């Protein structure tokens, strides 16, 4: 095939752009980013890596500010765009207490260890409401915050932990009614009141232990969401809240004591308006809380590694 090239020589050999005079650009001076790289990697991830400790406590400590901010956010957002705001924290246990007082205290005449029934019921409902709400909120927390989890790294345990911590604020607000009731019924405070923070802490740890476990399971098995309300409701009736532990027959007392919330609720009451502490029940509560925390940490760790792939 004969090709006739129609361009002149000049055109087929374009003038190189290099011939155009141009300002010489100074090479940007880079400052050395840091004097030397660390010898050991700051982060090392291996696929087969097996962690012996379920919790990297040092890592958690580094993220303590995040726990604070997430808790603060949960509190701040909870009663946004409601008419009565944080009053809801009071109304929920207050109305439950009124209903219980009318039906169980007055109509049925459930004994209350010689304490006015409203005070008795409220002192039990206060830790229970905190516990139940904390567990419920943290069970959903990983799913609710999925956008966060799938976009940025931080210890995931902060999410259910913040949900539990945020419940503490409600507990404090709802305590106002308890103080009012205590004044109204002229409760004489004893040194036992100093034990109250201990029981609050114990409830928090128990809620945390259960919350992190349930939140992790909920990510994988959404059955949790359906089962939890009914489990918590049954649990409440198995805890001496509307009735005193003393009405339970002696041969079933052990079963009552196996419920970690029994020691807490009874202890709460004892700390508030006196009465004998049940050391066995409290010891069981402490032991179960500890076991639950450790076990949950393992469950959480297992699921944490793959949580992003599930939500």
């Amino acid at each position: 095939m004969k090709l006739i090239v129609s361009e002149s020589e000049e055109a087929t050999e374009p003038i190189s752009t290099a011939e155009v005079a141009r300002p010489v650009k100074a090479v940007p001076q880079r400052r050395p980013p840091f004097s030397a790289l660390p010898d050991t990697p700051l982060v090392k991830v291996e696929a087969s890596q097996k962690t012996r400790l379920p919790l990297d406590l040092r890592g958690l400590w580094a993220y303590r500010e995040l726990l604070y901010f997430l808790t603060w956010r949960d509190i701040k957002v909870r009663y946004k765009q409601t008419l009565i705001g944080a009053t809801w924290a009071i109304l929920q246990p207050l109305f439950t207490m009124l209903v219980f007082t009318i039906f169980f205290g007055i109509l049925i005449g459930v004994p209350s260890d010689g304490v006015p029934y409203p005070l008795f019921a409220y002192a039990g409902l206060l830790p229970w409401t905190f516990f139940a709400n904390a567990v419920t909120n943290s069970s959903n927390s990983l799913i609710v915050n999925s956008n966060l989890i799938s976009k940025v790294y931080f210890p995931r345990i902060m999410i259910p932990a913040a949900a539990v911590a945020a419940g503490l604020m409600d507990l404090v607000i709802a305590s106002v009614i308890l103080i009012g009731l205590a004044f109204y019924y002229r409760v004489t405070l004893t040194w036992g009141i100093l034990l109250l923070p201990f029981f609050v802490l114990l409830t928090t740890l128990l809620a945390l232990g259960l919350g992190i476990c349930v939140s992790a399971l909920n990510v994988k098995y959404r059955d949790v969401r359906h089962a939890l309300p009914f489990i918590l409701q049954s649990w409440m009736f198995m805890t001496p809240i509307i009735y005193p532990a003393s009405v339970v027959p002696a041969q079933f007392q052990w079963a009552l004591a196996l419920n970690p919330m029994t020691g807490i609720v009874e202890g709460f009451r004892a700390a508030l308006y006196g009465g004998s502490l049940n050391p066995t029940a409290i010891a069981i509560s402490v032991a179960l809380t500890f076991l639950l925390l450790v076990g949950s940490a393992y469950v959480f760790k297992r699921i944490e590694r793959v949580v992003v792939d599930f939500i």
Partner: protein
Amino acid sequence: MKPIIRVENLGKQYQMGGLLASHGSFRELVGAALIEPFKRLRRGSRPPNEMLWALKDINFDVRPGETLGLIGHNGAGKSTLLKILSRVTEPTTGGFELYGRVGSLLEVGTGFHPDLTGRENVFLNGAILGIKRIELERRFDEIVAFSEIEKFIDTPVKYYSSGMYLRLAFAVAVHLDTEILIMDEVLAVGDVGFQQKCIEKMDEIRQQGRTILFVSHAMSAVTRLCERVIRLERGRIVQDGSAQKVVNDYLGASWNATAEREWTDLSEAPGDEVVRLRRVRVRDEGGQTTAAIDVRLYVGIDVEYEVLEPGHVLAPGIDLLNEEGVHLFSAYDAGEEWRRRPRPVGCYTSTMWIPGNCLAEGNFVAHAAVASHVLETVMHAYARNAVGFQASESREGGDSARGDRTGTISGIIRPWLNWTTQFYADKEASQPVPEEVAIT
């Protein structure tokens, strides 16, 4: 130099149809647990089917201060890789080491809560990204100034426009002070002005000598910011090299307008009884057919045609359009040689040369034609959308019409023009200097 990021044999496997899709609830799990051993017996220890390697055999090192771009089609594994490196998810095989703190920005506005004010969200977002509160307080004014929303900082962000929202989110993110910065597509936000500001900020971060890993579909941003680019396809690294080279090859492969079109059967080729097109192609100065050109260099468009009937005065021509369909120019061969000269029968190849530093970055489409312009224009052969090519620009060198500018430059062409400047030290004597100023 010792790498700051070392990735070895990294792989990530996903089960198709969602993880644990087969046992989504307790009941099914229990059922599966009972049946599974028997199933295993029957089919041996075959792994569960429908597994997909989102990433496989990924190995690379990143030197401190390097800006590495990751490109590839959707689903190539770019985002999965960034997610693994920012520890959002874990690899199935292999591992990696990081010798510096990591700030990752896989999405702007991560953790922003609509009910919280801008101020509150800055602190929350900062805490989530791992910025210390003291650090945030110190730089708060800087962040707000960068976002340009001073007036609305105490308004809940749900009342923000999407632009305001993204500006605030990006402002927090770029104030991450980590040695390694991982970013995914963050530049696709805001208006042009803010995008430019973001690119400038990233350029600043780059010049501070921090290491950046950057995923984007905006190739112009990739070539401008990165010196090195890794291209992923179907979970594997297919190319690792200089940004210009990798991006050009990638664009050449993916810009679906072809760089070359050939009509082997003359009877079906565009044209009439006078002339028919044989081939149109985009070429570089070396004669190689290419769909990806450097805006700084000459690009040629060859038109090959066969004259079937003698005695016609013919001129090949090209219409060039950009990706938005804006018609940049119509050019035809008005050269002396064939201007008024009837063409003998035979084959011709005419090349139109577009000089370097003339086009802007982007995609271009060329229509090719052979026409006669004697008395009236008669179009003998015309191929619409005959060829296409992509012009890109490297950030290296600064020897393009872009000069030292970063960010987006508007305008449909970007010629490198000569400028002359006259200087008057004395304002009183500001008479135009009559003599010619040397044009360089």
